[in-house]
């Protein structure tokens, strides 16, 4: 079993939570009510924490890899140069020096915050997937991934509660909130298909018994989502076509802008300690 598989799989998991945490962090100071500002930033902190654990693990794997295996890992000159010059790679190198085509997060997490309904919809769809994913990942033969999954699962249980309750509150609140929530669910649904479409990395990870067969999670996901949508007295959204590509490095236009903002300091002042 190659450590490249573990590395790439870990990076994919990390990218999802980093991008999601980054999106939620942008709400700080701007929520509809102070208490919810604090709730959202709690979720963001959890996700950034998960990202850090995963990137740290990925960095460890890289640092322990033989030079030949890591000679062409990334399309990122600064990062690849560090790797080739035997520098110790850190979580920040991975988060700050890769360009969009090296990121493997799903398209869902890079979608814009929009208004409260759009943010709730994105969390509702993503966190429910994370819940099923981490529950399964606890059984990974890779003990680090299993441990991260177990710890993260506790956090995600709270996240799905938060998101589901808001879907219900908005769906069964006022006529305006019902319309907005329905619209948001409809707009973001087309990004959920990708979550369950296994890419090559996930296939390899599954074969190696370290990764989850996400396609097997889809039925439970559908049922659980539907249950909440019904309780919210909303309609299940439909999609004529599911958008994909993020998991293979083909992103929407959003990610480029996100990374430009996130990474600018490290790019403008390379090789410095912060």
């Amino acid at each position, binding site marked *: 079993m190659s450590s490249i598989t573990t590395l790439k799989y870990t990076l994919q998991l990390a990218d999802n939570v*980093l991008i999601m945490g*980054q999106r939620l*962090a*942008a709400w*700080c*100071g*701007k*929520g*509809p*009510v*102070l*208490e919810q*500002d*604090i709730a959202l*930033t*709690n979720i*963001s*902190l959890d996700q*950034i*924490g998960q*990202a*850090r654990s995963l*990137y740290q693990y990925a960095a460890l794997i890289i640092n322990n890899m033989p030079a030949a295996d890591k000679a062409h890992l990334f399309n990122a000159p600064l990062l690849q140069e560090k790797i080739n010059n035997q520098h110790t790679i850190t*979580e*920040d190198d991975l*988060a*700050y020096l890769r360009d969009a085509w090296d990121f493997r997060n799903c398209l869902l997490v890079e979608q814009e915050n929009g*208004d*409260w309904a759009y943010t709730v919809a994105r969390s509702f769809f993503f966190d429910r997937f994370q819940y099923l994913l981490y529950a399964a990942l606890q059984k990974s033969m890779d003990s680090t991934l299993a441990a991260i999954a177990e710890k993260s699962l506790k956090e995600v249980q709270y996240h799905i509660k938060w998101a589901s309750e808001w879907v*219900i*509150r*908005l769906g*069964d*609140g*006022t006529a*305006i*909130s019902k319309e*907005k929530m329905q619209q948001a669910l409809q707009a973001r649904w087309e990004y959920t298909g990708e979550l369950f479409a296994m890419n090559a990395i996930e296939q390899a990870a599954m074969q190696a018994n370290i990764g989850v067969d996400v396609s097997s999670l889809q039925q439970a996901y559908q049922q659980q989502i539907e249950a909440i949508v019904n309780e919210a007295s909303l309609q299940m959204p439909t999609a004529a076509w599911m958008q994909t590509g993020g998991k293979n490095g083909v992103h929407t236009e959003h990610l480029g802008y996100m990374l430009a*903002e*996130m990474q*600018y*300091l*490290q790019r403008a*002042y390379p090789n*410095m*300690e*912060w």
Partner: protein
Amino acid sequence: MTQVSFEASFQKKIDEEIMIEPQDYMPDEYRKTLIRQISQHAHSEIVGMLPEANWITRAPSLRRKAVLLAKVQDEGGHGLYLYSAAETLGITRDQMLHQLHTGAAKYSSIFNYPTITWADMGAIGWLVDGAAIMNQVPLCRTSYGPYARAMVRVCKEESFHQRQGYEIMLSLAKGTPVQKQMAQDALNRWWAPALMMFGPLDAVSPNTAKSMEWRIKRFTNDELRQRFIDVTVEQIRILGLELPDANIKWNEERGHYDSSELNWDEFWNVVKGNGPCNKERLATRVKAWEDGAWVREAASAYAEKRKTKKAA
């Protein structure tokens, strides 16, 4: 009991350091002063989230991003504790927010300055939170119970805020030449505004005397400002940065550092609304509130429906 004896026993409590609680008798002026002071303190925390929240998505490392997010979140929490304390005096949070949004209430002017480099995150945590701590610690023993208890909670959480700011400055000051320059630049820009956080000179502060009698204020503006300068000059030396004011000099006779007169023109103008970011800060808060109206209404409507369902 006559009005005079109500007031006498009220002042007696204060003099004996017995806390005044929400249902106790209190003079109207005391209540009004407290509402103004506590609510403006709360507004400062909320508006104060914005200059730093600015940099969360651009923090240069994951650790810095997480710590900054936690700090700004804390500030939201502090605002919340303070709004809650003010509500015990007979004003609602919505009324206080309305005062903020219409400009009827003020917030600390320091937050009307822009955060234009990463080093500003260090300067703010170190200087701005540092000045706030100096104001806040004495308030832990202020006369009004809910306010004092809120301040105890705030002070406990505040200690990591200043440390994280100073740590950022340390990283930069001990880093590459351009990072050191970034730190110096931030110190130079935030120094005077931080000193202005202690308010106008004692000589032109009319409310101070009464506030001190009521133990709403424990030390004068100038006392606190001097204490801050004395403490911070040492911290600047440890960083190895240059003093931001050429006139800072130890005065053996006074036992304190002398420093330049502050630009009071600038101070009053920023208070009046002419600071670099006054309009933006308020506009951001007003927008967040207005954009969120449908969300708050939906939650209320949902709660109402549940109540009716239960009763049925």
